[in-house]
């Protein structure tokens, strides 16, 4: 393999994806850490032998490192996380998402997405809109009927977004979404969360995609995305009749219909001034006491279909074999199967 094509960016991605330090890689591959460092910084090219050792240690095919791809960074607001993630974990997730983005880009060369009504963008400041108003406009634009959003994933996919269920390997990060040049909006969703939280998170991410194009005040954007999500999933005029008597033992039935968490319903009833400050506190105390092991009335995770269709198109219409897909994506066949074929065990890359 020609050493000149070795891409240091891909080495960093591979190392981050496997959560392997330069020192670990040196030990695993049998090359010196000094050399690993130099390769990563573009100082000198590895010999074929060294490149293969590194590839073997990181469990990627050598072709992976020869791709002319570029890693992109994601602004903080693209991550819906609960607390600060450990550096290693966020680096791994960032790397894996980058790799997945590259895959999707390659796969879309031979697959045409035909969105019915693409996800629009609204500039809040320029248009003088609130997140609630944007949510109302978007529901109108997509001609959503009154009441609950039946299938949010389906809605986003029909609008050209791609939703990917992923095992982040942590419950500290719920989702990452972004627009990337020449690509449809991508929504990477942590599959290890309850269905109601999944829907609210996805609506939150949709809010970012619709309202936030350039980074700004993180907290402000998070609040806006939350307000958008609440208004999009629970429009004030539609949800109000269901929240006339907010009782902890009655909200489960509302949840089952609206497919939002009881917690979100309590918050919504407070935001819509349907409960007093004091009663809101009481509800939260009752909530914590009653649902300390999770909420009842489980909402299933909505299953995306676009990625499945893209892979199916390659396998059935373009007659790709798994081996062909592995070559295209620069992965081992086993990883292709794990990531794209055996959906129930869908992973970003083999961990």
């Amino acid at each position, binding site marked *: 393999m020609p050493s000149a094509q070795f891409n240091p960016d891909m080495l960093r991605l591979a190392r981050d994806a496997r959560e392997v330090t330069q020192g670990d890689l040196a030990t695993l591959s049998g090359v010196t850490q000094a050399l690993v460092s130099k390769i990563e910084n573009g100082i000198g090219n590895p010999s074929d032998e060294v490149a293969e050792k590194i590839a073997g240690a990181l469990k990627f095919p050598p072709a992976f490192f020869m791709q002319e791809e570029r890693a992109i960074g994601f602004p903080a607001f693209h991550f819906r996380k609960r607390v600060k993630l450990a550096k290693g974990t966020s680096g791994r997730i960032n790397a894996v998402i980058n790799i997945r983005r590259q895959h999707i880009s390659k796969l879309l060369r031979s697959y045409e997405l035909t969105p019915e009504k693409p996800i629009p963008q609204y500039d809040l400041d320029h248009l003088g809109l609130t997140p609630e108003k944007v949510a109302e406009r978007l529901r109108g634009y997509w001609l959503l009927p009154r*009441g609950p959003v039946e299938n949010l994933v389906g809605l986003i996919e029909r609008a050209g977004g791609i939703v990917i269920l992923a095992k982040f390997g942590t419950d500290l990060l719920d989702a990452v979404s972004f627009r990337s040049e020449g690509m449809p909006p991508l929504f990477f969703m942590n599959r290890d969360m309850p269905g109601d939280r999944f829907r609210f998170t996805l609506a939150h991410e949709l809010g970012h995609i619709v309202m936030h194009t350039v980074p700004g005040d993180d907290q402000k954007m998070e609040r806006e995305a939350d307000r958008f999500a609440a208004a999009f999933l629970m429009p004030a005029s539609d949800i109000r*009749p*269901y929240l006339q*008597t907010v*009782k*902890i*033992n*009655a909200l*489960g*039935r*509302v949840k*089952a*219909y*609206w497919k939002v968490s*009881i917690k979100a319903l309590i918050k919504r009833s407070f935001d819509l001034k349907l409960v007093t400050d004091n009663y809101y506190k009481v509800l939260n105390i*009752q909530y914590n006491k*009653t*649902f300390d092991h999770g*909420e*009842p*009335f489980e909402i299933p995770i909505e299953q995306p279909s676009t990625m499945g269709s893209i892979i199916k198109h390659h396998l059935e219409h373009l007659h790709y074999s798994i081996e062909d897909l592995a070559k295209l994506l620069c992965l081992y066949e086993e990883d292709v199967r794990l990531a794209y074929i055996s959906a129930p065990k869908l992973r970003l890359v083999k961990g």
Partner: protein
Amino acid sequence: MSEDQDRCMGLAAPLLPEFYDIWHHAFGEYQKYPTEFTAEHDNTTMANCIRSHAWTEVVRRFDGRKGFNLLRLGRLNLLLCRDETVWRFKLVDGSGRHSNYQTEQQKNFDDQLPLPGLPSEAVRLTSGYQPDEAGHSIARVIVARPIGRQIEWASQVNIVDDVASWVDITPPRLPGTERVDFKRRK
């Protein structure tokens, strides 16, 4: 545990598995309702629906069965069992107390007043269910002995391997506050 409770639960023993099943059946029927309807229900509506399913199941099981009579006194549906016990079916709280609006006949029933068709010696009992705090499932099935607005005693019914047992769940009363006499309502 009182002698009365022990005696009454002895009389009720053969019926406990059936009542247990009836409540779970009724609750299950309610859970089949489309969520678009149940979302509009308040807790009273839910309780009415479940009780209605339970009563239908009671009729289905006991109508025509030897030793049992179904009585309908106004809006009060009762199951009379061998002139020994007479049962009503209600949503109850953890003390076995039901709390919804009572008709005159229902009050008379609880106050142990004579009612047409009801043998005076039959012990008046409530078969009830208590939902969990989220209203998602049945937390327990209860047998209670209401007298007036007080609960004389309450028992929780447990079914393990198809065998019914019960435990006393009567809330403890402070000394001196026990019901010592039944005062007739004015």
